[in-house]
Structure formats: structure tokens, C-alpha cells
């Protein structure tokens, strides 16, 4: 059995470091905020103009002028800052954000990512995803390893790209993968998931060490 969405988020949260500025995308990445290790200070950046995003508000604290990039009402933490969209993307494009977590449909062994466009379906837009993958120094992709037995960890992305050669780490329901030198390196496997299963569901070039540790999920 692979990881649940919450467990993927839990594993990604282990990539955080004290003092990090972090941008979390929509979906599984948003859940990462629930697992920030205790005693660690992390500031969440929301690209619509918040540094220091807090939790969802109580009914009394709902403010239509205070939303996150998913358009949900939020609060801010002590020491937060608001800014306009140009400044926000100066942070992102300029490489000032320490860690970016986002979802994807496909990634490939060259580190390219497809996350915004499925031919035949209405294309709603890329939002800030192309800027995030172009600008972040450190990106973790949260995604499903496969869909109905079809690998999403590919030799070459089939869908239109969001960014080229920009992804270095992927956490799926089955594995933690590092991308370097044109290959996926299997760093960890989900508890109870065999290396063989991961190999069979990975289309791209996969390098497997003699011992692959299990992820630590609590």
C-alpha cells in the first residue's frame, strides 16, 4: 500500500528547515503546513501577497481582503507582511524562496515537469506554477507515482511542460526520488512497498541502490 495524501505531506514536511521561507501549492502541498516539525520556524509565502500565512480563520476573523493563492480565506502569523504581485514574484523568480512544494501530472528524468495542461480538457491556466518552477532553488513535487497502472515518472513528459530541467526531488505515494544526471535515484520507499513494485511503475531511468530504506512516517 502506498502513502495517503496526508502521509505524502508528512514526508515532504521533513524537507523543511528552521528559518525557511516556503511556498506551498494547491492540493497535497497545502497539507504540508499541518506537519511542520515542532519548534521549527517556517514562514509560508502565498503568491497573491502574503509572507507569513497562518491557519484558516474562525468565523469572526473571516476577512474578504485576506485570502491565499487558492482563494480561501486565511489569517496571518505575527511578523507577517503583505505585498503586491510584482514583489511576490520578485521573491519567487528571484530565488528568494527556500522551498517550493507543488503538484504535477508528470515529471521526467531530466527534471522537467508537466502540471497545467491536459489536452482535450479545458485549460484554466498555469497561475504561478511556471514562475515557481523557474525561480525556486529547491522544489519538491508531490504527486501520484502512477495512474491506473500507468507511470507518471517518465523518460520524457508527454503533456505540455510547466518547466524544463527544474525538478530535483519528487515524493510520490510509493517513493522519494532524486533527479540528477538524467535519471531518477530511488532514495526511500513507502512503508511496505517493495523496490520491485516501484521499478515496475517507473517508466523513466531508475537507479536503485542495494539497500533502499523505508520512509519515516509517524
Amino acid at each position: 500500500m502506498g502513502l495517503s495524501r496526508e502521509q505524502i505531506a508528512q514526508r515532504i514536511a521533513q524537507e523543511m528547515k528552521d528559518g525557511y521561507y516556503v511556498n506551498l501549492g494547491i492540493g497535497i502541498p497545502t497539507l504540508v503546513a499541518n506537519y511542520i516539525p515542532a519548534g521549527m520556524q517556517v514562514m509560508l509565502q502565498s503568491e497573491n501577497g502574503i509572507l507569513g500565512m497562518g491557519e484558516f480563520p474562525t468565523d469572526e476573523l473571516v476577512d474578504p481582503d485576506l485570502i491565499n493563492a487558492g482563494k480561501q480565506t486565511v489569517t496571518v502569523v505575527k511578523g507577517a507582511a503583505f505585498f503586491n504581485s510584482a514583489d511576490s514574484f520578485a521573491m519567487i523568480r528571484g530565488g528568494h524562496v527556500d522551498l517550493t512544494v507543488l503538484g504535477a501530472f508528470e515529471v521526467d528524468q531530466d527534471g522537467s515537469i508537466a502540471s497545467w495542461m491536459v489536452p482535450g480538457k479545458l485549460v484554466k491556466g498555469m497561475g504561478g506554477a511556471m514562475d515557481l518552477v523557474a525561480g525556486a532553488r529547491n522544489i519538491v513535487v508531490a504527486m501520484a507515482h502512477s495512474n491506473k497502472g500507468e507511470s507518471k515518472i517518465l523518460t520524457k513528459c508527454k503533456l505540455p511542460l510547466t518547466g524544463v530541467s527544474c525538478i530535483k526531488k519528487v515524493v510520490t505515494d510509493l517513493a522519494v526520488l532524486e533527479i540528477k544526471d538524467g535519471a531518477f535515484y530511488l532514495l526511500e520507499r513507502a512503508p511496505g512497498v517493495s523496490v520491485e513494485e516501484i521499478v515496475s511503475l517507473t517508466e523513466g531511468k531508475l537507479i536503485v541502490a542495494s539497500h533502499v530504506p523505508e520512509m519515516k512516517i509517524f
Partner: protein
Amino acid sequence: MAGFDKVVTSYDDALSGLKDNMTVMVGGFGLCGIPEGLIKKMYEMNVQNITCISNNAGVDGFGLGILLERNQIKTMIGSYVGENALFEKQFLNGDMKVILTPQGTLAEKIRAGGAGIPGFYTATGYGTPIADGKEVKEFNGRKYILEESYTSDFSLIRAWKADRYGNLIYRKTAANFNPMMATAGKITVAEVEEIVEPGQLDPNFIHTPGIFVQRVILGNFEKRIEQRTVKK
């Protein structure tokens, strides 16, 4: 109006000169920070063939969504659209052209336009469908694409506080694209929640200096919430 007094008291005056075929920037992120009354006035004026630059396109029956009811938008330039059924229909029918632009590139195109910079290179979108037909240039071993900036005939923005001279302060995440759009409009109209006399806003805390703003109108906002999410 005399001297630097930018305040107008009717929406007719606020959008005087807005015509068919113009390019109009509209501030806001989702429904947050949109100039609600100015959009309604655009709807009432029924201006047609508008090129609209806005991060999103509203929802059915609110925000920019209302302009779709009369097919007023010819070209929509934004980063994320289609939260409304009518938009989807007009897009798929080919009634409306949609130019999807990465959010940061959109912000920078507007910022640059307002700052008199006609284009810039960015790594955003290199190697993706949005780079098609765009010049590629290499800097320090990395490839960038040339993006051209935007200006507008009218920029319709929302601010929190204004003084009569058009100095503006925004509130929380309602700032978003509004400050850049203020700089990029031939005519920038600010719809605001409060207007005070010159000298009553601390010059240290002005976000948009009045030089960028031609008209100020006191608005009355519903401030609809798209995704009301509360703590469980």
C-alpha cells in the same frame, strides 16, 4: 476638479472616455480587491470588443463574469481563468480569445509597462508552450524568453484609502495586481473604500503615489468571498 483634486462623484465621470476596442486592466486576485462598481459601470455602458487584462475573469454573475453576459470581452489576458461556466462556453465557442500568461510574467509585464520598459527576459515559461514564437536569449548559461510589457487605455483598480490627490493605500491581499496596474494606465481610475483630505494619509505609508492616478471614486463594495474556509 481643480489642481490635484482627482475625486469624481459619479461612475459616469469615473469612466468617461471609455470606448469600444480599448484595452482595460482590471485589478484583483479572484474576487479579492476587484473594483466592483467600475466593472458594473462597464457592463452598463456595454462597451464592446474589450481587451481585458486581469489575473482572473470573475465568476458567473459577479466581477468580470458579468461582462461575459453581453460578450463584451474580445480578448482575455490572465493567468488562471474559467471558474465560470459562461467563460468556458465563450472560450470553447471561440467567441473570446484567451491569452494565458504565467502570473509572475503578467505582473512583470504590467509593472514594466508602467515603468516605461517595453520588454524583459525571463526564465519563466522557457521550453513550454507559452514560449512559442518568442525570442530566446542565453545569460550565464541559462535560457530566457523575451516578454513584451503591457499598458492600458484604462486601468480600473481598487484601493482601501485614498486622499483627494490620488495617493493610495491598499489593504492586506486586496493589493495584488492593483498597484502595478495603477502605473500602467493612460487613465487610472481608483475605486476606494474611504477618501480623506490631503495630508491625512502618512506619506510614509503611501503604496501608490497620486501621480499614477487620474480619478478617484468612493465605492460601495459587497466583497464577495469565493472560497469561505474556516477553522474546523
